[in-house]
């Protein structure tokens, strides 16, 4: 039934388009000077036929489900409904729904079967009513648009206004989705902070979130200080940058300034393949190759290396970040005008001096922006650290030790046995909130830096 609804909208839009196009062309053929070219008259009809009907369908679909549910519930026998909570009513309703779809477990009670039959009938009525109303609305739009066709009608302005509105709508969707995500994080975090004091979380140096979520479980008393977790994230991020920064920067400089065109044509795509490797694969690489290699190297040198080190996880993450930094650097270097390069070379500077003293400073805004974006990627990266980093939170900055990260903790808190009114689970949202704030801060700094330098250099 739903596809038929949309088919009607599409057909009405197409019909409206053709009708108006013909009408406008006839006017034009008769020698009238049209204000807008015929295409705009046709587009105007298309929007008028399709948009209101579409909006109507969306609203109808959003509202019809709850209305039908309420109708079915109100028709139930009084003794079933007496004393039922909202949650129980919901459960009952979904039971009736699956019954209506023919998924019955055992023999249903007669009143349930009756309710299911009523639900089916109501849904059929709803479908036909929707179809009728949509046809009516689309037809009204089509007819109205057809009557508007005239030489002086400003169809272009109308169409532009409608398209403008659509673009505003799309950007609002993006903005409100972001606000919604932040708001849900915030609400859940508040529930966490109602159970664990805010400052204990912010400044605590002990992270042992495995508290019992049922009476009979044996577990620790729990401690929710996020500092060791944050420190772990920072250690891994620093390790990742130590790997990614020099390699990314120098490979970009080499490819942009020194490599022959043929080498560049081969090397650049290969470098970009790194960006396409799924993070799970990097995780495998870290666990199966990097970590054992580090451990063996440690044994050979007589250094104690733990099995899942920050170095292995961070180093692998650094490899993941190389294409990020190198492509930003490459873009920034390519964006420096050729005239600056020529100016420097004409003064007798070598290519190296030109890169170091003219091109690189001029490209710094773009490079810094790329690096800071890489930092926020590293902070938020999950899969590699879930596979390669440890689970125990420690206050250590030794990269050969095992550390855990914010993202790893969120994952471990949310998998397995969870209850959403328990501090253990809610802590994940608080960590997510803090992670969001940290990356937001980094991104703001990145934008600031880029803007400040840009003012200086242009």
């Amino acid at each position: 039934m739903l596809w038929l609804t949309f088919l009607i909208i599409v057909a009405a839009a197409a019909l409206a388009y053709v009708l108006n196009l013909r009408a406008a062309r006839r006017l034009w053929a008769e020698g009238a000077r049209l204000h807008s070219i015929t295409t705009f008259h046709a587009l105007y009809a298309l929007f008028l036929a399709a948009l209101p009907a579409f909006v109507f369908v969306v609203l109808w679909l959003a509202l019809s489900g709850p209305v039908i549910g309420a109708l079915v519930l109100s028709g139930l026998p009084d003794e079933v409904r007496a004393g039922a909570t909202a949650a129980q009513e919901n459960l009952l309703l979904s039971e009736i729904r699956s019954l209506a779809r023919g998924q019955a477990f055992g023999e249903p009670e007669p009143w349930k079967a009756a309710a299911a039959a009523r639900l089916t009938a109501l849904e059929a009525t709803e479908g036909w009513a929707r179809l009728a109303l949509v046809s009516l609305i689309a037809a009204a739009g089509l007819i109205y648009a057809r009557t508007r066709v005239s030489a002086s009608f400003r169809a272009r302005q109308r169409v532009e206004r409608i398209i403008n509105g659509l673009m505003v709508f799309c950007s609002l969707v993006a903005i409100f989705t972001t606000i919604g995500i932040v708001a849900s994080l915030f609400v859940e975090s508040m529930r966490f902070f109602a159970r664990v004091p805010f400052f204990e979380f912010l400044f605590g140096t002990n992270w042992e979130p495995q508290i019992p979520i049922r009476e009979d479980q044996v577990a620790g008393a729990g401690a929710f200080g996020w500092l060791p977790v944050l420190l772990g994230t920072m250690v891994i991020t620093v390790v990742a940058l130590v790997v990614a920064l020099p390699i990314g920067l120098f490979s970009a400089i080499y490819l942009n300034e020194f490599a022959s065109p043929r080498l560049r044509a081969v090397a650049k795509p290969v470098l970009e393949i790194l960006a396409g490797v799924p993070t799970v694969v990097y995780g495998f690489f870290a666990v199966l190759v990097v970590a054992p290699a580090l451990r063996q190297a440690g044994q050979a040198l007589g250094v104690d290396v733990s099995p899942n080190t920050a170095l292995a996880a961070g180093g692998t993450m650094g490899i993941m970040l190389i294409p990020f930094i190198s492509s930003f650097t490459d873009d920034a270097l390519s964006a420096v005008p050729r005239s600056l390069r020529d100016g420097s070379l004409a003064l007798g500077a070598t290519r190296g001096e030109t890169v170091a003293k003219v091109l690189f400073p001029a490209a710094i805004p773009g490079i810094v922006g790329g690096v800071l974006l890489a930092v926020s990627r590293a902070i938020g990266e999950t899969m590699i650290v879930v596979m390669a980093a440890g689970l125990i939170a420690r206050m250590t900055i030794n990269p050969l030790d095992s550390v855990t990260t914010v993202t790893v903790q969120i994952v471990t808190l949310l998998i397995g046995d969870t209850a959403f009114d328990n501090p253990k689970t809610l802590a994940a949202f608080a960590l997510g909130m803090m992670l969001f704030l940290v990356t937001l801060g980094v991104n703001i700094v990145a934008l600031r830096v880029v803007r400040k330098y840009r003012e200086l250099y242009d």
Partner: protein
Amino acid sequence: MNQQETGAGEIKISARDVQVHYGDNHALVDVSVDISDKMVTAFIGPSGCGKSTFLRCLNRMNDTIDGCRVEGDIRLDGEDIYAPEVDPVHLRARVGMVFQKPNPFPKSIYDNVAYGPRIHGLAKNRSELDEIVEKSLRRGAIWDEVKDRLDAPGTSLSGGQQQRLCIARAIATSPEVLLMDEPCSALDPIATAQIEELIDELRRQFCVIMVTHSMQQAARVSQRTAFFHLGQLVEYGETGQIFTNPSDPRTESYITGRIG
């Protein structure tokens, strides 16, 4: 003729049978010319005639273009500048260049001028460097306008000031030859007049070679003029001679506006 102008007329650059290819395109054909010291030589001609290409041969800037091939013999003070033992980096310190569009580096005015002396190690200490910068800015006729804000970015100046800054920057490495590739084409008439006046000053110390689209400018500023057409050097001689009594019919057509 005063004292500083002695040496005018000595041959500074001599080119013989210069050919330039960009890939398959034969951009410059059999150019032979002797350019005198302490004079302004103007290269004129329609767009794409090879005048800028020839200019860029003189400091080997064409080396930086992929697929560009230069043949023939170009001598600076009798030395072959395309000889294998010549380092283009050193050559470019002797043959300075000013571009069509002012291209100050995104650095302070001071650092712009100090750039060349620093990379060539011309100053032993900061005070010597200060001296070079001041002298160059004075010779670039821009000292008085910028002396109070040497730390300001070079890009904050106006177009004409930027171009004079670029000239000062080119002078700072004490070159012997100054190449100018349409130095006024991006400037307004007042700034153009200032630059032309400056070029007239500069010829006391340098061999100045400029490419220009404006025949009036060539007539006003230069002592020698070379007319290029379709990759060939058509006519070369005294500026007055070229503009009043050209010997080649193509030169005459160009000057009177029939081709170009």
